C-alpha cells in the first residue's frame, strides 16, 4: 500500500524533537488563556459569568493581602493532610496485611473489594447523619477517598513481586523480616507511589465535595459564600487554588519518586 510505503523512515536525532515538543506543550494553554482574556475584554464573555484571568489574579492578590486566602488555604490543606494520613495509613496497613499474610488476605480482601464498589462520595448523606457537617465529615471523606487506591496498590504491589527474587534472598540467608525490608518493600514501592498519586487525586476530589457541604473555613466555604454574593471572580479563584494545590502535591510526589525510585530512572536513562 502506498500509504505505508510513503511514510518516511525516522532517523532524525531524538533530542531536538523532545525540546521543541516541550516548548510546544505550553502553546495551547497560553492561547486559551489569551482568548479568555480577550473574550472578556472584547465583550464576548459576560464578566459576571466568567471574569477575565487578570481579574481573578487581582482578586487573588487582594485576598492574599487581606490574609483570608491564606487562612482558607491552610484550612483546606489541613483537612487534606489529615484525611490522607488517616486513610493512607489504614490502606497501607490493611494492604500489607492482606498482601503478606494468607489469613489477612482471606479476612480483609473480599470485604474491601466489595466496599470499593460503593462510590464513597455517595455516602455524604449517611456521613452527615453519622459525623455531622463539621470537620470530621471533610476528613472522613478524604480518608475514604485515599484509602482504596492505597490499599489496592499496596496489595497488588506486594503480590506482583517476582517470587524468584524472594527465593534468591532466601538463599542469601535473609530472615523473613529482612526479606520484607530488602525485597518486599522496595519491590512494592513503585506500585505504592502509583497508589499515593491516585489517593491524592481522590483526596482532593473528596475535599471539594466535602467542603461544599456547609461548614466553616476552607476554599469550598470561600467559594460557596462568594456564590451567594455573585462574586464570580472569587469562585474561579477557588477553582484555581484547588488546581494549584493538586499540581503542587503531584510535583512533591514526583520529587519523592525520583529520589526513592532512582534505580528505575537509571533503567530509563539507558
Amino acid at each position, binding site marked *: 500500500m502506498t500509504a505505508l510505503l510513503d511514510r518516511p523512515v525516522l532517523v532524525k536525532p531524538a533530542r531536538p524533537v523532545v525540546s521543541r515538543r516541550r516548548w510546544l506543550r505550553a502553546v495551547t494553554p497560553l492561547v486559551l488563556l489569551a482568548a479568555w482574556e480577550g473574550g472578556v475584554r472584547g465583550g464576548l464573555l459576560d464578566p459576571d459569568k466568567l471574569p477575565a484571568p487578570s481579574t481573578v489574579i487581582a482578586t487573588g492578590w487582594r485576598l492574599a493581602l487581606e490574609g483570608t486566602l491564606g487562612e482558607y488555604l491552610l484550612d483546606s490543606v489541613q483537612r487534606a493532610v489529615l484525611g490522607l494520613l488517616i486513610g493512607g495509613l489504614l490502606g497501607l496497613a490493611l494492604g500489607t496485611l492482606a498482601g503478606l499474610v494468607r489469613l489477612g488476605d482471606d479476612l480483609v480482601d473480599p470485604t474491601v473489594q466489595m466496599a470499593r464498589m460503593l462510590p464513597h462520595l455517595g455516602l455524604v448523606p449517611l456521613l452527615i447523619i453519622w459525623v455531622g457537617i463539621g470537620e470530621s465529615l471533610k476528613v472522613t471523606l478524604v480518608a475514604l477517598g485515599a484509602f482504596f487506591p492505597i490499599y489496592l496498590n499496596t496489595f497488588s504491589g506486594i503480590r506482583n513481586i517476582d517470587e*524468584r*527474587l524472594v*527465593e*534468591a*534472598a*532466601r*538463599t*542469601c*540467608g*535473609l530472615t523473613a523480616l*529482612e526479606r520484607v525490608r*530488602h*525485597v518486599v518493600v*522496595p*519491590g512494592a*514501592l513503585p506500585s505504592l507511589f502509583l497508589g499515593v498519586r491516585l489517593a491524592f487525586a481522590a483526596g482532593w476530589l473528596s475535599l471539594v465535595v466535602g467542603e461544599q457541604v456547609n461548614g466553616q473555613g476552607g476554599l469550598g466555604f470561600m467559594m460557596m459564600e462568594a456564590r451567594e454574593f455573585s462574586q464570580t471572580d472569587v469562585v474561579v479563584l477557588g477553582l484555581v487554588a484547588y488546581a494549584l494545590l493538586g499540581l503542587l502535591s503531584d510535583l512533591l510526589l514526583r520529587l519523592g519518586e525520583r529520589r526513592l*525510585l532512582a*534505580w528505575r530512572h*537509571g*533503567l530509563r536513562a*539507558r
Partner: protein
Amino acid sequence: MAARTASQVSVARGVRRSFGDTVVLDGVDLTIGAGEVVALLGGSGSGKSTLLRILAGLDGEATGSVTTTGSTAVVFQEHRLLPWKRVAANVALGVRGGSLRERVDAALTEVGLADRRDAWPAELSGGQAQRVAFARALVREPDLLLLDEPFGALDALTRLRMQVLFGRLRATHGFAALFVTHDVDEALLLADRVLVLDGGRIAEDRPVTLPQPRAVDAPGFGAERRVLLGLLNVPASPS
C-alpha cells in the same frame, strides 16, 4: 568405597517429590564430597532443577533426607539480582560479619567487576550480571555451591568465558559444587563426576577421569561424550 563422613558436604537419601500425580523424583540418593564438582545431567523435565532446589532447601514439599554440612550458596540460571540495589549491595545481601566492604570488593575483583560496584543491575550485560551473581555466592565462602544451569541464559562466547572463570574460582576457593546442566561438553569440562538423572533416579554415577586441563579436542573427550549422550538417549551422530 565408602567415603568418610567428615569429607561430605551434602548427603541426600531417598528424596521424593511429586507434582500432583506426576512423580518427578522417585528416591534419589546422592553424595557430594568436600571440594568435589559434580555435574547433574538429565533431559528436559527430568527433575534436575527440582533436585537442586531441594538441596538448596527451597522446596518444602519434598520427602526424604537431605543433610548439608557447612555453608551453601546458590547461583540460578537468571542472575536474580535485586534491581533496586546497586551491585555492591546485591553482593553484600545477607552477609554478616566485619570488613564487609573489603570482602565485597574482593569478590567483585575476582569476577573482574570491581569497577562496577556502584552500577545498577539494569546497567549490566547478561554476562556481567551473572558474574555479579557469582560474586554474591563467593562472598559467602560456601562449602557447597549449587548452580542451576548457571550459564544457560548466556550467549555461546560468554558461556565459554564463564566456564573458564568457574574453573579458576574453583581452583582458588576449593568449594564443592553441584551444577545442573544439559550441556554434556560443559559437564565434561568442569566436573569431577557426572550424575545422570533419569526416571526420577540417579541412573548413572560416572567419574570423569579426563586429565586436566581439559579441552573438547583433547583425546578421550569425544569417546566420553558419546557415552554420556548415549546415557541421555541421544543418538551419537545424526544419520
